[in-house]
């Protein structure tokens, strides 16, 4: 399927070997999925081997296949990220299946489809095939967002769904990918984006660079359109991720401060304009004041987390369905009840390592385009995971975003996997490959 086009003469032999680290770790992920399957089967119907084992195992298989493709195609990206991505998916899937067995097969389909797209993005990104496509993608996304505002449908308070027949998807999710690519395209032109440099770009220099200016303007358009759909959570994730990406590229601290001020002001204005956001704030400050009304979801989240305790009640033995939106927004608390603090800390650790390792890889990336691509992708995963886990834990006001790679949702799963695909593809270290490509 894949061929190595650019055989650099000084390539180390180890890189062309069969990705041993990745293989071992993928083995661990598959073992995890089996254990989850056995536990789910035991808790659900008392039998050690049930259908659940097959389902859970099937959630890990695409990552094994992705590994085989990477190995066969001499993919030169990082070897630790793919198993971490697999671990997040494998940790999330049993809870989704256990809450909604009827959605188990769909979610499995999303995981398989998403993994295929992840491999595609990884390979294309590592060969710089995506470079220059960012603005096109962003224009397309903006067009879809505008279309959504006109003909979109409302689900869960946000008018962010576009339907093609029965198939629905959220353009705001897809826009995340475009924002990363466009940001990497636009900001890699700046001299301050050079990995080694410590210099900072003043605002005039940033604005003077046409590509960077275009990226900033189009990011703004995406954020505004997403807010207009009342999908404030996603808008926040994109906004913070993009500002962090621009900071890395430019080092302009004033820009960060101004952006933070604009963000805070926007949140306050949004609290006034959208009543449901104001309510979220009030119930964040004191969920127990109205535990049967506006604070209901948070109260149920706390009850679930507390009922899980340190070791959890075991898959199938808790009552996580008592939390509203358990399979999507509240997946962290829902799984926290059954896998306990031990499992919840494990889940946090997986995201911690995934994003942390992503940033480390960005520091070693072969070009500023890759470095920015990796940073942008890691930012999205980091901000979204923090916003929703923090929301589930009452650290932040609850926003309606999914736990990336774990929650139920087609667009969310595929987009998240595509984003980690960009991250994977951006971890290629050799400069020699930069200029390469298909001959």
């Amino acid at each position: 399927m894949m061929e190595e086009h650019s055989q650099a003469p000084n390539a180390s032999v180890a890189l062309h070997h069969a990705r041993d680290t990745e293989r071992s770790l993928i083995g661990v992920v598959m073992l995890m999925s089996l254990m989850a399957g056995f536990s789910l089967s035991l808790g659900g119907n008392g039998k050690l081997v049930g259908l659940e084992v097959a389902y859970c195992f099937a959630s890990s298989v695409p990552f094994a296949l992705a590994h085989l493709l990477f190995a066969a195609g001499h993919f030169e990206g990082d070897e630790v990220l793919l198993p971490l991505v697999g671990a997040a998916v494998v940790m999330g899937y049993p809870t989704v299946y256990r809450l909604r067995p009827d959605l188990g097969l769909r979610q499995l389909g999303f995981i398989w489809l998403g993994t295929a797209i992840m491999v595609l993005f990884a390979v294309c990104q590592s060969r710089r095939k995506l470079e220059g496509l960012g603005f096109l993608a962003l224009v397309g996304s903006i067009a879809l967002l505008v279309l959504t505002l006109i003909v979109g449908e409302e689900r869960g308070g946000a008018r962010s769904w576009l339907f093609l027949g029965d198939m629905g998807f959220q353009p705001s999710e897809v826009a995340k990918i475009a924002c990363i690519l466009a940001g990497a395209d636009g900001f890699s032109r700046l001299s301050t984006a050079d990995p080694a440099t410590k210099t900072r770009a003043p605002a005039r220099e940033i604005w003077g660079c046409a590509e960077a200016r275009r990226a900033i303007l189009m990011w703004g358009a995406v954020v505004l359109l997403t807010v207009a759909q009342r999908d404030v959570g996603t808008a926040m994730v994109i906004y913070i991720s993009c500002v962090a990406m621009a900071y890395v590229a430019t080092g302009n601290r004033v820009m960060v401060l101004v952006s933070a001020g604009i963000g805070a002001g926007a949140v306050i204005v949004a609290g006034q304009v959208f009543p449901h956001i104001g309510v979220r704030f009030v119930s964040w400050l004191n969920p127990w004041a109205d535990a049967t009304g506006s604070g209901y979801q948070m109260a149920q989240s706390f009850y679930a987390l507390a009922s899980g305790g340190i070791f959890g009640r075991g898959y199938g033995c808790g009552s996580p369905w008592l939390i509203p939106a358990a399979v999507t927004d509240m997946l962290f608390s829902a799984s926290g009840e059954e896998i306990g603090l031990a499992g919840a800390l494990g889940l946090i650790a997986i995201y911690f390592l995934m994003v942390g390792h992503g940033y480390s890889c960005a520091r070693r990336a072969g070009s500023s385009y890759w470095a920015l691509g990796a940073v942008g992708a890691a930012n999205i995963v980091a901000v979204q995971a923090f916003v929703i886990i923090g929301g589930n834990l009452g650290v932040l006001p609850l926003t309606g975003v999914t736990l990336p790679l774990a929650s139920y949702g087609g667009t969310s799963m595929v987009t998240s996997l595509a984003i980690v695909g960009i991250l994977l593809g951006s971890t290629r270290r050799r400069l020699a490959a930069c200029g390469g490509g298909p001959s």
Partner: protein
Amino acid sequence: MNQRILRLLQAWIAGCAILVVAATYYQAITADELATSPENPRMANLERDVVRGSILDRNGNVICDSVGPGLSMRVYRGPDSLAPLVGYASPILGKSGLEAAYDVWLSGRRGPYDMTGVLSTLIDQPDYGCTVRLTIDVDIQKACESALRGRRGAAIVVDAATGELLAVASSPWYSMKGLELAWDSIVSRDDSPLVCRATCGMYPPGSTIKMAVAAIALDCGVTSPDEIYECEGFARAGGTVIHDPAGAHGRVDLRDALSVSCNTAFVELGIRLGPKLHDQLRRFFFDRSIPLDVPTPPGNLKVRDAGVSGDAIGQLAIGQGDLLVTPMHVAMMAAAVVNKGVMMRPHLVASVSAADGTPVMTTRAKALAAAITPSSADVVADGMIQAVKRGTARSAARWGYDIGGKTGTAQNPHGSPHAWFAGFGVDGSQRIAVAIVLENAGAGGSAAAPLGGDILKVALDSKTGTGR
């Protein structure tokens, strides 16, 4: 640029640290409280699936148990006079009394079953709540019950050496069978059968308070055991003249005064103590509630800084006036007298254990207060023994038993006086204290003392407690 990526990495580490702290806080540190909160919808589900734990007496007799999972399977088997204390656990009415106070254990919300989700599913058996073993002795409880049958009142028996409550009887009682159906008529009854009179009924203590007044007078040094009082049959306190219904007692010492319940002598002691009397009665918890496994009301003694009238002191010294206490206050006062002045912390629950017998929690005897000095306690006890031998409490005497007691005839605005008997029985190291009150039943010596004697005889015969 690499340096700035490092900044993001640092921010991410800080963010994850916040998440870890928050998760640990909610899942480990505050988890117990929220997990077992009755507001947690899991608890209602658990109640449906768990066989609620049994309540046993101290010898393992079943007072209350469940024949299957769920609250509707609750069956009350114990003595009826214990029902107001044990309370009910009903899917319609909710829970009361001990059923409410020990709900976390009985329901299995807390205990060794907490984390056996997977295992119990495997074994495919319903979970069981914990068993609560009371300090109550069903035989003594039944003795109290037959003493109270057909009357309104309360009897409470306590092991003075340990604070274990051996019987807590309240009359009238209600039938646990069909409680939900009869609820409206039970609630509308004038004689309040739902109230556990022994722990929550409020009565003027009458002359039973004299044991406390005598002890306080001795401890404060305003009298000595050998002082002789001249009883002329009345005493003046402020503007009120307080009479001795039996007439002049003549020359009496403190023991005699207790024995014959001489109002004159105690009004004199009250006047000597002055405002100190209010202050010192707090040692007997008359101004607050005695801590117990179930909520109990405080006594209504009000400590005034100054300006206590002589009238009020005179009334207080003979247990009249506006002071109201529970029968448990009176029983604990008698218990302190017979336990060398030390009031033990009363308790109702001996232990909590898992359904398979694994102990979960055991109550240990603890002193609550040193209410009286040991020497004063001996003098008061002597006076009370004399009262049973040849004083007002003669009808409590039982041949071959060492019994002391103090009667009371408490005037009240609801009709005839309440009849009181507070006493103790000693057998070797066994020290049992009892208090019995019969509402509007007349004189304590004739109405309450014989019943008190009967109860003490059964309690001493049962060899329950430390004498065993």
